[in-house]
C-alpha cells in the first residue's frame, strides 16, 4: 500500500512536471507565432511605402524600410529591452533590470529561461513597427542615414521608454494614474505619430507639393493597388501585434500587460468591430480605397487602448467615428503645409490619441490591480500629454540638429531626378513604366537570354 502511494506520488509529480513544461512551451509557441505574424506588418509597410512613392523613388523607399527593420532589431537588443525593464518608475533604474542587459545570461540561449527570447522578439517587432510608422511619412526626400538614426532613436529608445512608463505592470502612469492602454495605442501609435510630426516640421515638404500660394498638390502614389494590398497585409500582421499585447499565463487566465484579467476573445470581438467601423467611416468620408484601408487601420488603433473591455458595438461606433474624422485631420495637416506622404500623423498620431482618450470617456471606473487607481479620464489625459510630448520633443529636436548640420535632406537636384537613379544600382521597372523607353527586352526563344532592342 505504501509503495503504491509512493508510486502514485511519483506519477503525479511527473505529470505536473510534464504539464508545466507543456504550458511553458505553449507560451513560447504563442509568442513565436505572434512575432512571425508581425513580420507581415513589415511586408505591408514595404508594399505600402513602395506604392505610395512615385516611380522614381520606389526602390529607395524599399531600402529605407528594410534597413529600418535591420537596424532596430540589434539596437533593441543592445539597449531597447534594458530601457523597458529599467525605467517603469520614471527615470530611476529598477531592481532586476540588469537581467535585460545585453551581456546577461538571459539574453541568449538558456535552458532555464524560455520566456526572455520570445518576449524580446515580440517587443523588437513592436519597435520595428513603431519605426516603420515614421518611414512612410518621410519618403522621397529624407537622407537614408538620417532616417536610420531617427528610426533607431524612435524604435529602440523613445517608444520603449513610453512603454516602460505606460505599458508595463509597474509603469508609473498606471500605478499613479490608472492609465489603461491594453494594445499600445499610446506608446506605439501616438508616440510614433508625434515623433513623425516633429521630424516633418524640420524636413519640409517634397518639392512640388505646394504652390507659391501654399495650396497643396497631389503627388500621386505610383501604385495605389500596391498601397491597398500593403495596408491589408498590415492588418493581417496586426493580429500578431495584438496577440503579443496579451499575457499568456501558463495554467491561468490571460491578463493584459497591466495584470488585469482579459481574454483573447475580447481582442477578437473588438479588433474586427473597430476595423469594420474604420473602413465604413473611411468610405463614408472619402470613397477612396486607400483611405478606406487606412481608416480600417485607424479603426483598430482607435479601439486598441480598451480592446479588452469594449462592448463590441461601441468599438464599432468608435472605429466608424475615427474613420470619418481622420481623413479630415489629414486634410487639415496637409493644408497647414506639412507633407505627410502616407498620413502617418493623422492615422497613427491622432488615431492613437483618440484611442487613449476615448477609454477615459467610455471606460472610466474599471478597477485596477495591485493597488493602482481605477481608469479615469484624467489618468488617460495625463498619459496622452506625456506620450505626445515624449514623442514630439525628441523628434523635433534631433531632426532640427540634423537639419542644421545639413544631413537631414537630400540635395534638391537629387530629389528632382529621383533617389533610385542616384542611390540604387538597379531599376524598379526596367520596362520603363511611366517614362519613355530607351530600349526594351524582347524574347528570343532562348530561355537563358533576351535581346535588347531599341523601342519603336
Amino acid at each position: 500500500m505504501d509503495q503504491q502511494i509512493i508510486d502514485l506520488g511519483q506519477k503525479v509529480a511527473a505529470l505536473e512536471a510534464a504539464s508545466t513544461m507543456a504550458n511553458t512551451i505553449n507560451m513560447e509557441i504563442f509568442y513565436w507565432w505572434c512575432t512571425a505574424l508581425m513580420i507581415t506588418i513589415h511586408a505591408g509597410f514595404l508594399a505600402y511605402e513602395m506604392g505610395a512613392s512615385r516611380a522614381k523613388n520606389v526602390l529607395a523607399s524599399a531600402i529605407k524600410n528594410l534597413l529600418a527593420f535591420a537596424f532596430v532589431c540589434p539596437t533593441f537588443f543592445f539597449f531597447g529591452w534594458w530601457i523597458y525593464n529599467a525605467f517603469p518608475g520614471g527615470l530611476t533604474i529598477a531592481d532586476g533590470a540588469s537581467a535585460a542587459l545585453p551581456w546577461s545570461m538571459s539574453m541568449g540561449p538558456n535552458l532555464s529561461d524560455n520566456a526572455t527570447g520570445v518576449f524580446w522578439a515580440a517587443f523588437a517587432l513592436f519597435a520595428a513597427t513603431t519605426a516603420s510608422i515614421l518611414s512612410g511619412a518621410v519618403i522621397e526626400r529624407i537622407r537614408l542615414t538620417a532616417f536610420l538614426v531617427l528610426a533607431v532613436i524612435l524604435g529602440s529608445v523613445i517608444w520603449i521608454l513610453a512603454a516602460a512608463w505606460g505599458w508595463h505592470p509597474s509603469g508609473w502612469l498606471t500605478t499613479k494614474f490608472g492609465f489603461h492602454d491594453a494594445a499600445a495605442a499610446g506608446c506605439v501609435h501616438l508616440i510614433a505619430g508625434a515623433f513623425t510630426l516633429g521630424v516633418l516640421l524640420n524636413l519640409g515638404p517634397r518639392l512640388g507639393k505646394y504652390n507659391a500660394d501654399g495650396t497643396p498638390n497631389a503627388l500621386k502614389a505610383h501604385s495605389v493597388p500596391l498601397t491597398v494590398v500593403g495596408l491589408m497585409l498590415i492588418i493581417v500582421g496586426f493580429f500578431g501585434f495584438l496577440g503579443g499585447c496579451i499575457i499568456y499565463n501558463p495554467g491561468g487566465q490571460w491578463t493584459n500587460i497591466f495584470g488585469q484579467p482579459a481574454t483573447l476573445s475580447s481582442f477578437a470581438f473588438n479588433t474586427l468591430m473597430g476595423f469594420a467601423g474604420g473602413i465604413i467611416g473611411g468610405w463614408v468620408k472619402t470613397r477612396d480605397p486607400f483611405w478606406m484601408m487606412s481608416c480600417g487601420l485607424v479603426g483598430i488603433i482607435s479601439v486598441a487602448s480598451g480592446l479588452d473591455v469594449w462592448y463590441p458595438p461601441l468599438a464599432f461606433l468608435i472605429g466608424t467615428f475615427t474613420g470619418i474624422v481622420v481623413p479630415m485631420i489629414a486634410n487639415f495637416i496637409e493644408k497647414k503645409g506639412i507633407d505627410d506622404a502616407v498620413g502617418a500623423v493623422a492615422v497613427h498620431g491622432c488615431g492613437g490619441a483618440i484611442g487613449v482618450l476615448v477609454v477615459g470617456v467610455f471606460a472610466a471606473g474599471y478597477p485596477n490591480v495591485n493597488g493602482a487607481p481605477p481608469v479615469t479620464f484624467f489618468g488617460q489625459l495625463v498619459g496622452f500629454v506625456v506620450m505626445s510630448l515624449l514623442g514630439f520633443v525628441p523628434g523635433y529636436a534631433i531632426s532640427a540638429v540634423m537639419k542644421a548640420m545639413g544631413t537631414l535632406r537630400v540635395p534638391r537636384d537629387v530629389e528632382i531626378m529621383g533617389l533610385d537613379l542616384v542611390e540604387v544600382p538597379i531599376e524598379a521597372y526596367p520596362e520603363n513604366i511611366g517614362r519613355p523607353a530607351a530600349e526594351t527586352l524582347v524574347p528570343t526563344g532562348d530561355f537563358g537570354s533576351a535581346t535588347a532592342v531599341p523601342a519603336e
Partner: protein
Amino acid sequence: MNSSPITSWDGATAYFTFADSGLGLWLSLIGSVALLVAIIWYGTRHESRDFAKFLKKP
C-alpha cells in the same frame, strides 16, 4: 575554436557561445555595436559622395 560554455547537457542553463568567457562575449558585443556605428558613418559618407558625383555630372 572551442566556444562552448558546457561540457554536458546535464544541468545546463545559459549555453550560448562564450557564455562563460568574458573576452569572447565582449568582443562579439562590442564588435557588433561598432559595426553598426561604422555602417552609419560609412553610409553617410557614401551617400554624400553619391550626391556629389551626381551633381557634378554635366
